[in-house]
């Protein structure tokens, strides 16, 4: 009886709706409501992130690396209202009524930032159904946005937080395509939706790729590009089309070209996967030809061969410490890559591109630093930390908000149980916007994704 009644009311509603639109159907097109999508300037897929509650907290007595090359012994870091309030030596004044952690023997850094991650787009478990990082159906797909592939339940986010102290990260499309699409920068705070993780105010990035991958993927299908010269030709033609589009005020909206125009206007930052020195030099000339800027080369295993050129062009190199030799274009990878770039005054960022290495960017930075120290290249511990904090933030366009411990910035902070450049140290506490999101001393203060519930190892230390 109840079921019948429900059905009846549903039918009634349907009928009512039909009746209500009868007059509209008869009206002429000129009278109809005009349909118009929101423009990007009006806000699409906006971030819904807001910081979680935190308490005013001071960390006292620890060694502080500020993320911009500074080091303070016996330092004080005071955060309140989600922001850094004060950073300084032991005399730094702090209010009496706040939580104080004794950091003696411990270290404080800004939250670690990974400029190159595929978490969420290639999540765990890495089954085919989750393979959402490469729209490998066309060599140029500037219209796709990585955020539309991010699975916020990827357990990798929590590992990166707990073991790596990662507080912000850039999720990039893969490198199958010359133009892989837009990246998204996330706060490493779990969300039910990706918008809840989206870093408010972060600019978009644009993923491009040189070399072997695009020419292999498309050449293997008998289509352009199948060579490196084909890579450049397809890129240049695509930019020419984008410039025509930008100059045609009557052009029909085109998602891909909107992204490319965003790059030409400098609003979207180019992150270019590129291994070989000679190819990076070509890409920088292409950028000059077309009127855009490369913000960072990613992987860049041969960046050390052109540190001078990269410095002159103000392009960062986002690199591994020790990956080499797994493909032809990585054959010349050396441990000294970061150190040689630093010697030239070029910008260094240590990245992961890996769901395991993102948990140890601090250790990767140490390897790269030590390789330089062995050759007498002076790289301070504070500089090595800068490679994985401020420099990453700068290349992601969020350096005004995070990446260093300075008053007014987001309170993205890691308290380490020892020297963060030592293999023996781990994050003890991680704050994001002043909210304690991980505490090694509190088993419940660690994220467990939906996927892990009721499965072996739920809530384990990992």
């Amino acid at each position, binding site marked *: 009886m109840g079921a019948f009644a429900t059905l009846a009311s549903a039918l009634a509603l349907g009928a009512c709706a039909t009746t209500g639109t009868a007059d509209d159907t008869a009206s002429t097109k000129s009278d109809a409501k005009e349909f118009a999508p929101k423009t990007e300037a009006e806000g699409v897929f906006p971030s819904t992130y807001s910081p979680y509650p935190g308490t005013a907290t001071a960390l006292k007595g620890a060694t502080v690396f500020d993320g911009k090359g500074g080091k303070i012994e016996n330092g004080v870091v005071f955060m309140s209202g989600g922001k850094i309030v004060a950073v300084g030596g032991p005399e730094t004044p702090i209010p009496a009524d706040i939580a104080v952690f004794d950091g003696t023997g411990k270290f404080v850094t800004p939250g670690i930032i990974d400029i190159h991650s595929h978490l969420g787009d290639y999540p*765990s478990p890495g089954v085919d159904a989750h393979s959402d990082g490469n729209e490998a159906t066309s060599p140029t797909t500037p219209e796709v946005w990585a955020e539309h592939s991010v699975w916020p339940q990827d357990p990798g986010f929590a590992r990166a937080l707990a073991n790596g102290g990662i507080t912000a990260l850039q999720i990039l499309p893969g490198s199958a395509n010359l133009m892989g699409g837009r990246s998204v920068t996330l706060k490493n705070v779990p969300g039910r939706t990706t918008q809840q993780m989206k870093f408010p105010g972060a600019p978009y990035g644009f993923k491009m790729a040189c070399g072997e991958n695009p020419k292999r993927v498309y050449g293997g299908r008998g289509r352009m590009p199948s060579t490196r010269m084909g890579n450049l030709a397809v890129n240049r033609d695509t930019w020419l089309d984008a410039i025509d589009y930008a100059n045609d005020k009557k052009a029909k909206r085109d998602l891909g070209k909107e992204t490319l125009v965003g790059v030409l206007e400098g609003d979207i930052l180019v992150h270019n996967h590129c291994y070989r020195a000679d190819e990076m030099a070509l890409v920088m000339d292409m950028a000059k030809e077309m009127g855009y800027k490369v913000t960072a080369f990613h992987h860049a295993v041969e960046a*050390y061969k052109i540190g001078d050129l990269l410095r002159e062009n103000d392009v960062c190199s986002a690199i591994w410490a020790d990956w080499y030799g797994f493909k032809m274009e990585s054959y010349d990878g050396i441990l000294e890559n970061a150190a040689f770039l630093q010697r030239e005054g070029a910008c260094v960022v240590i990245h992961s591109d890996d769901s*395991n290495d993102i948990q*140890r960017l601090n250790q990767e930075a140490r390897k790269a630093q030590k390789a330089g120290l062995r050759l007498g290249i002076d790289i301070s511990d504070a500089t090595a930390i800068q490679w994985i904090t401020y420099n990453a933030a700068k290349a992601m366009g969020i350096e005004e908000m995070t990446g260093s411990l300075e008053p007014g910035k987001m309170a993205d902070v890691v308290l380490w149980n020892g020297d963060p450049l030592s*293999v*023996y140290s781990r994050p003890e506490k991680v704050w994001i916007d002043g909210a304690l999101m991980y505490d090694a001393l509190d088993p419940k203060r660690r994220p467990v994704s939906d996927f892990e519930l009721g499965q*072996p*190892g739920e809530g384990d230390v990992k």
Partner: protein
Amino acid sequence: MKRLLQLAASALALSATPTLAQDVVIANARLVIGDGSAPLDGGVVIVDDGRVVFAGKPAPGERYETDVVIDADGAWVTPGIFATLTSLGLADVSAVSESNDIRAGGSPFSAALDAASAINPVSQHILVHRASGITRAATTTLPAGSIFAGQGAIIDLDGDSQPVMQARAFQMINLGEGGGRLAGGSRVAAYALLKASLREAQALDGKPGIPGTTEIVKDDEVLLSRFDAEALVPVVTGRQKLYVAVERAADIRAVLALKNDYPKLDLVLVGVTEGWLVADEIAAAGVPVIANGLLDLPDTFEQLGATQSNAGRMARAGVKVALNAATMQDPRRLQQVAGNLVALTRVPGATGMDWGKAFAAISSVPAEISGMGGKAGVLKAGALGDVVLWDGDPLEVGSVPTRVFIGGVEQNLESHQSRLRDRYRDLDESELPKAYDW
């Protein structure tokens, strides 16, 4: 010329560059024996005729005749790292298929594949890893056309004409998700193929060269040729170790149960991500494990329980645990993985290893599992003279060897990488292009 050496650290100064195995005394070392014991200061290692004759604290007044004396000046001195499992010597560039002998999916053969037939002793990967302190390794092909990977070898990294110490040291199979795919689509099929193959091998025991055994075929594909079946005779008779790649707790139990039907199998488990869930059972079976060290992500449905505490928890339960080089970016990260296990001892709720045990998990333990117990990965009288001097704590990231001896012979630590490093120490091309800088 031999010199009479009084084993007191202060008297040591001279050194030389030997081309053949010479007597070497390394004194004043922060010495790591490699057997799980803690490092000791003021240690001495004596290598004679390529073998360790003494390692430890010298007795007062002890004297020894030697060619070369090295004052370590307090530096860390360890046995060479023993890397298992690797593919060292089997590929130049893994993505350059013609240079890569690791997989042979197009071959009709599987179990019969013999890694020892293709080891390149001067592969750049061998040179790079030697300079990282790895002196011996288990190297193997990987399963591609069948669940059987083929037969792995134990190699040294000294770059001479004889890299293979023991050919056909072990057979490897995959009995997890990967094995299921290779067997035709399921774990069930993998077990059927394994059991059918072992039955064929049992039938061939003692009958080499006699034809008439049925091939296991699927369509026009041979899953097990006569030649492969013969290669499994040493496995089923327990003369060759069987390494089984497996991750899930239930799969680990199933592998351990194989001993009920094939009691002679000499099993070693590889991977074993969920080993901590069945650690007591592995320990009771007395089966050693080459464990993934730091994997903590549910990359597959057979790794849901992944945690960095896996190795430590298994070791605590009494399992013999070596750290697996196969899951790392490259095997030179073994030190880093071991160091991370030490880090876990300071994380509440986690289980790691103390420093000595962590180092043993990349030296003596993998050597023992590889049939090299007492010979490699340890500095004890009678062991091979593989000695590494380091510029820092060898488990700390960024530490590298300063000198490496393999079988008592000091090794050249140069490689393609070191030559690139030397060329690009500066970018000066004011006189000539970089191509002339060599």
